[in-house]
């Protein structure tokens, strides 16, 4: 009953306010125009609750909710934030996002954002990092912006996309494991070669990103990241038109790991570990490439990440060991079967806030994640100090429809099938296939 009450309360403003959800710049640009006023203080509800202080500043209110109904096979999970507990029965209803925040500008020079996840407040599970994007962006020059605070490390297309704009209710496993996610730092960034929509991002961060944390504790120190992305083929007029707007990106990170059992690890969506942490000392490096192509109702995306972690002096007798290597890639295809979507991912004919029924997209994704090591002395083993690591990999299929009702509401019904290569690791003995199903109601503003 509480669940339905919560859903009802959250749906209400979406129906009444008829405003635009957004937290990405591109989405704000997609907002419906707000009539200007001569008043110094102007409170608007057109796109979202927004307070304008003349030309000096504006404050936009934003929120994001993911209400999930989930099922697992086997019907158990290793609950997040529990240590060495026996597998437990997961709840069917789960709030995975409950975010509130502010976003806006102060003069033409500063952008800012403040966001916090309130899941613990609404009684969901433990959140190691409740503060999300909290930064100030200084627009120093057309080719130079400086962002400082906590924000997403510029690595990975999927990891850098706002969660309410993801194609699936599940992020790819490789993005979850190999991309760094948010971190505190300073980043220089800007668009350049506007004809090709190129963007550069170069930053230095205090740690390696929250995704590589273990129970909220960082596993690597100061990390440098750089990313170059855009549509470089746009200027090549000889290429076919539908090829020229392919989006391409490349990114790297490098950071010094903290000594100890801090190597990356692999686990199923239900939390069962299939590749444990290894002892590391030295640098962690990532290299990633990404591609996205949208043509009419069809979307194709792909991504590749390679990560290496050094193990200097980590043998049982102090000898150097070969690097841990992690490699992941995915290919995603989507087809907009009913209705039309704007480039921002909003339906052209929305339900409730317009006269249509929204838009329905059907998507599928193959995602492969592999852990192994460079060849070393001895034969492969799963020991955290093994010279040669016995590989393991996870092959994940994700598929299902997404119904974009309007700017605020999206319903996703997705299934995920994870298959492990080495089932002898301690996930669930004898099980190599794990199914997860999610019906998600997303409300974002």
């Amino acid at each position, binding site marked *: 009953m509480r669940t339905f009450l919560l859903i009802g309360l959250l749906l209400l403003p979406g129906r009444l306010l008829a405003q635009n959800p957004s937290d990405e710049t591109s989405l704000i640009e997609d907002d419906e125009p707000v009539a200007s006023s001569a008043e110094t203080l102007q409170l608007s509800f057109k796109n979202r609750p927004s307070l304008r202080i003349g030309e000096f500043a504006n404050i936009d209110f934003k929120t994001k909710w993911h209400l999930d109904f989930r099922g697992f096979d*086997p019907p*158990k999970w290793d609950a997040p*934030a*529990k*240590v*060495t*507990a*026996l*597998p*437990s029965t997961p709840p069917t209803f789960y709030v995975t996002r409950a975010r509130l925040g502010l976003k806006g500008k102060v003069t033409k020079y500063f952008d800012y954002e403040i966001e916090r996840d309130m899941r613990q407040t609404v009684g969901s599970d*433990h959140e190691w990092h409740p503060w999300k994007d909290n930064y100030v962006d200084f627009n120093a020059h057309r080719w130079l912006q400086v962002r400082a605070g906590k924000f997403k490390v510029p690595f990975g297309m999927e990891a850098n996309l706002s969660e309410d704009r993801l194609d699936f209710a599940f992020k790819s496993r490789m993005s979850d494991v190999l991309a760094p996610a948010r971190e505190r730092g300073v980043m220089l960034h800007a668009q350049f070669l506007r004809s090709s929509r190129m963007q550069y991002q170069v930053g230095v961060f205090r740690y390696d990103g929250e995704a590589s944390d*273990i*129970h*909220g*504790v960082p596993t690597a120190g100061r990390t440098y990241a750089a990313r170059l992305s855009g549509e470089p083929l746009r200027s090549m007029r000889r290429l076919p038109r539908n090829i020229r707007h392919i989006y391409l990106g490349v990114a790297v990170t490098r950071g010094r790991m903290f000594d*100890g*059992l801090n190597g990356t690890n692999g686990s199923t969506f239900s939390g069962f570990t299939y590749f444990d942490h290894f*002892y590391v000392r030295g640098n962690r490096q990532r290299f990633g490439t990404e591609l996205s192509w949208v043509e009419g109702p069809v979307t194709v995306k792909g991504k590749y990440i390679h990560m290496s972690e050094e193990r200097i002096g*980590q*043998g*049982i*007798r*102090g000898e150097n060991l070969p690097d841990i290597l992690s490699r992941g890639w995915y290919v995603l295809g989507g087809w907009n079967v009913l209705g039309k979507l704007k480039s921002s991912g909003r339906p052209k004919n929305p339900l409730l806030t317009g006269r249509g029924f929204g838009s329905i997209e059907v998507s599928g994704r193959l995602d492969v994640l*592999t852990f*192994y090591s460079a060849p070393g002395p*001895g*034969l*492969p*083993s*799963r*020991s*955290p*100090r*093994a010279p040669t690591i*016995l*590989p*393991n*990999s996870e092959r994940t299929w994700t598929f299902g429809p997404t119904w974009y009702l309007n700017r605020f509401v999206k319903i996703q019904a997705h299934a995920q099938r994870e298959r492990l*290569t*080495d089932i*002898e*690791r*301690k996930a*669930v*003995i004898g099980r190599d296939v794990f199914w997860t199903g999610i019906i998600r109601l997303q409300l974002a503003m």
Partner: protein
Amino acid sequence: MRNLTIAPVLASLAVLTFCSQAFAQTQDDLFNGDILHEIRLYIAPEDYVTFKETNFTCQTQELEALAGAVISPLPRVICHFPVEFHWKFNGIDITLPQAAIESHGKGSRSNFKPSFKIDFSRYESRNNFLGLRYLILRADTQDPSLMHERVAMTFFRKLGIPAPREVHTRLYINDQYAGLYTIVEAVDPIFTQQNLGESSGYLYAYEWIMPWSFADLGPDPSKYSPLPFKPENNLIYPVVEPIIEMVRTINQAPDAQFSSVVSQYIDLKAFFKEIAAENFVAEQDGIIGGYLLNNFFLYRFGGTLRSIFLPWDKSNSFWQIDWPIFHNFSSNLLTWRSLAVAPDLIALYRGALQQAVDVAGGPGGWLEQEITREYQQIRQAAYDDPFKLGDKFASGILRPVSNDDFDAEAAYLIQFARQRSAFVRAQLNSGLILQ
């Protein structure tokens, strides 16, 4: 992808290669009580430091996690460490290069002389050592004689009770002598297969979290498992309902049908034999010990409701020579109701006690011979052990044990062996004496 295909094959070859030297040896060789064994562990020095740092935290954390606690403010605690395992037997070094250790014990836990659980299969789940997946290296930190555990378990096995096999070993860690230890066979599905002829049932380790004596805890399975009945297999589906039924039956079975009804859930013949053996060796911390139920495994046979109790941790045995034969019977619902309404079960118990008397013998009997043999075997290794600890009166404080203390406790054991049978026989002959 080819790497992924080849790797498991190579891993299997690795296991075969490293274990090939061990093919000539068997579990009987490892548990050959005629010799003092030698085990060497190699561990990264920083791991051994961490092991000692987390030795006590790991135990707490495991219990908290089993109880469903959310460990939010604590950083992760590392409790397993990779080691190279070497067993020297008849001049041959039999090695397993990738085993794991974790700390072991409750009241006996010590950083001065830690106990270890060796997990041969943690990193290779099909891996084993002579067919064993685990071994315990007990530091015997509560027992100044270093022999209670081995003598008691050897006695239990002689009585036909499925008890772990145990022998003594010199233990070296990174080539430094770490002391005299007892190698203890783990109670796991391999053990039940070898001793009970099956492993398809449900095995639980009893974790002492509060004094409990089979009082009915109600219909909620979480009151029984994962604590105090911690599942050792079938972690995903640890069917607990038969335990709830077993306890309810112990509490509510009609007096007239007590034996027949309870026997649907418990192998009562085996249970009273175990109780008899425990009371014969004056076990202070067993199923009906001073802390109520403790130190046992419960195994429920596959496809049945019937369970058997398996003994564990006998370091507080040989408590006193005049330990009454019905000691603590009133503190446990099963033994108390048996005493009150089931003379057939008490007859079983008395019969098992008589068997214990006969097997142990008096002066010069089997028990004295066994203690003498073990003492002579381990004496020099015990003298060389600078880490000996003891807690003779179960005060909860482990104290250093000198060579004189060791000799004195061994002498007491001899005295126990010479006098205990006569005392028990006298109590059996004097009729029912309830303490």
